[in-house]
């Protein structure tokens, strides 16, 4: 039996409470309910693909940090002489945050958008497009941050961590992951086939190789250094490396601001696109 109250339903009361706000048309403030959905769906997802995100940076650390590191010896960075593994480790942490966030906000979001078609159902509830964007980006951020935290643990167990500031890498990884995820989701919303998503790899691979991950960008000509310094992964690595080494400078605020802007642009575009695709 269905009991029906003649009084205002709870769902309406909840929605009414927010109805005066400026963002009431696009946001109900319940992005977490979508994250809860994703947590429930985790069971069905491929556990293996989830695990690779943890393993990948460790493999790179072992191969490069110790393998190549044995040949390279030490590296000079910002006036410090560092074992090569210490130089590479924070960069790989930034990479793992980026990869986790990108994977979730591109392939997984694309799958939900075009195959599972869950956004049609979600947008017919009192959630708005900004809730959906925040929920998915927040979820992708969690994934990136989890990989980063796992990697940080491994690095610490290997005895590479020297500063307590390394703990700040967790919130830093969250910021990096959030920014990458919000741009990732924005880009994905324009894609119509899985094939197009593969093009993203063409962007990510050079980012990974040449953003000061494995060698300082001072190896490049001046003009190229400027270009590389403008890329998001270089900014991420500047932030993680600074914190990992405990070198706190005001310059670290540049990547923070960079990612705040990147996140905001990604969020705005994603929200517009979701609105366009599911609510127009």
């Amino acid at each position, binding site marked *: *039996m*269905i*009991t*029906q*109250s*003649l009084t205002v*339903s*709870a*769902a*309406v009361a*909840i*929605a*009414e409470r*927010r*109805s005066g706000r400026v963002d*009431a*048309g*696009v*946001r*109900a403030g*319940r992005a977490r*309910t*979508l994250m*809860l*959905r994703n947590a*429930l*769906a985790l069971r*069905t*997802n491929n556990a293996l693909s989830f695990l690779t995100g943890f393993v990948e940076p460790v493999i790179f650390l072992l191969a490069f940090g110790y393998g190549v590191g044995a040949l390279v010896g030490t590296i000079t960075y910002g006036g410090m002489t560092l074992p090569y593994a210490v130089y590479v480790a924070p960069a790989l942490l930034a990479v793992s945050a980026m990869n986790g966030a990108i994977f979730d906000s591109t392939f997984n979001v694309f799958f939900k958008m075009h195959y*599972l*078609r*869950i956004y*049609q*159902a*979600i*947008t*017919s*509830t*009192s*959630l*708005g497009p900004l809730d959906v964007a925040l929920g998915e980006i927040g979820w992708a951020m969690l994934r990136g941050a989890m990989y980063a935290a796992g990697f940080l643990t491994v690095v610490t167990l290997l005895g590479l961590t020297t500063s307590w500031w390394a703990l700040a890498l967790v919130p830093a990884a969250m910021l990096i992951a959030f920014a990458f995820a919000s741009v990732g989701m924005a880009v994905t919303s324009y894609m119509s086939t899985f094939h197009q998503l593969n093009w993203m790899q063409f962007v990510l691979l050079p980012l990974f190789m040449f953003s000061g991950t494995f060698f300082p960008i001072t190896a490049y000509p001046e003009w190229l250094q400027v270009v590389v310094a403008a890329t998001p992964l270089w900014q991420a690595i500047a932030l993680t490396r600074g914190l990992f080494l405990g070198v706190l400078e005001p310059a670290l605020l540049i990547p923070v601001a960079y990612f705040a802007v990147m996140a905001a642009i990604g969020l705005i575009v994603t929200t517009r696109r979701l609105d366009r695709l*599911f*609510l*127009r």
Partner: protein
Amino acid sequence: MIRARALTKAYSRAASAKRAERRPSEDTSAKRAERRPSEVSTGSDGGRTLLAVDGIDLDVAAGESFGILGANGAGKSTTMRMIGATLQRTSGELTILGRDPAHEGPVIRAHLGVVPQQDTLDTELTVRENLLTYGRYFGLPRTALVPRIEELLDFAQLQDKRDEKVEALSGGMKRRLTIARGLVNDPSLLLLDEPTTGLDPQARHILWDRLYQLRETGVTLVLTTHYMDEAEQLCERLVIMDAGRIVAEGAPADLIRTYSSREVVEVRFGTNRNSEVLPHLHGIGDRIEELPDRLLVYTDTGESDLQEIVARGFMPVTALVRRASLEDVFLRLTGRSLVDG
């Protein structure tokens, strides 16, 4: 509850998409071709705009149960989605519960229970989790949802499937789950787009019964259907849409009285003979409609008209005298039967 004035939805479509979407009834007769939704050329890119909903007026009062009938492509789902605040109108006025869906979508949708034409269940989740997460999207706390979900599982008769994945359900079960999901937030306005398509007769009757009960508690129903019996059972008032426009409006009984005779004689003479016989039946009944497989004679005196047909020397293969129904109204107004679109 709902007020629409000159409500219009135009879909832009690329020149290539147009060809793929040719409708089956397009070339059968000039009369039918005329009734396709209007297309308007726009701009330089050769793209065209299709007026899926073409300036309709609607008023639905609180507590009413209101139906939208129309052949495939008439614009029913488009109208439902505009009312559901998930599709924005191109022009005209629309207020749902006194609010404009263009600006207050989330609040409006909190009032609504939506059963879309196509199931949009979350196939990564179980039956119960579908109800739970959907309720959570509305902000309902888990403590309130747990007992509510039990009621809904009973309602949908899915208790024994509660922990199954949605993929493991039959089509009709999925439909029932979608309907149950639409009720999770205690909606005051329930939008049902072909709710019983895919349900077996028993499940249909059970659903009708539940919808009656909801109506008694004051819930407003808006539904589309291709089943005339369903429309006659459930709708106090309905509109018939054709090619994006409303062509008739009223209570089912009034519509039948206005647009049809009391009785209908259905006679079949075999596929090729129907049109041969037709000219010889002149003068029988008020009006005769020719369908591909039968002739329909509209009349107030069915039995004697049937005798007259036989007396003129035409022995039908099958013959039936019945009361006029909404189906006949529909045929009269749109020139096609509801089912074949």
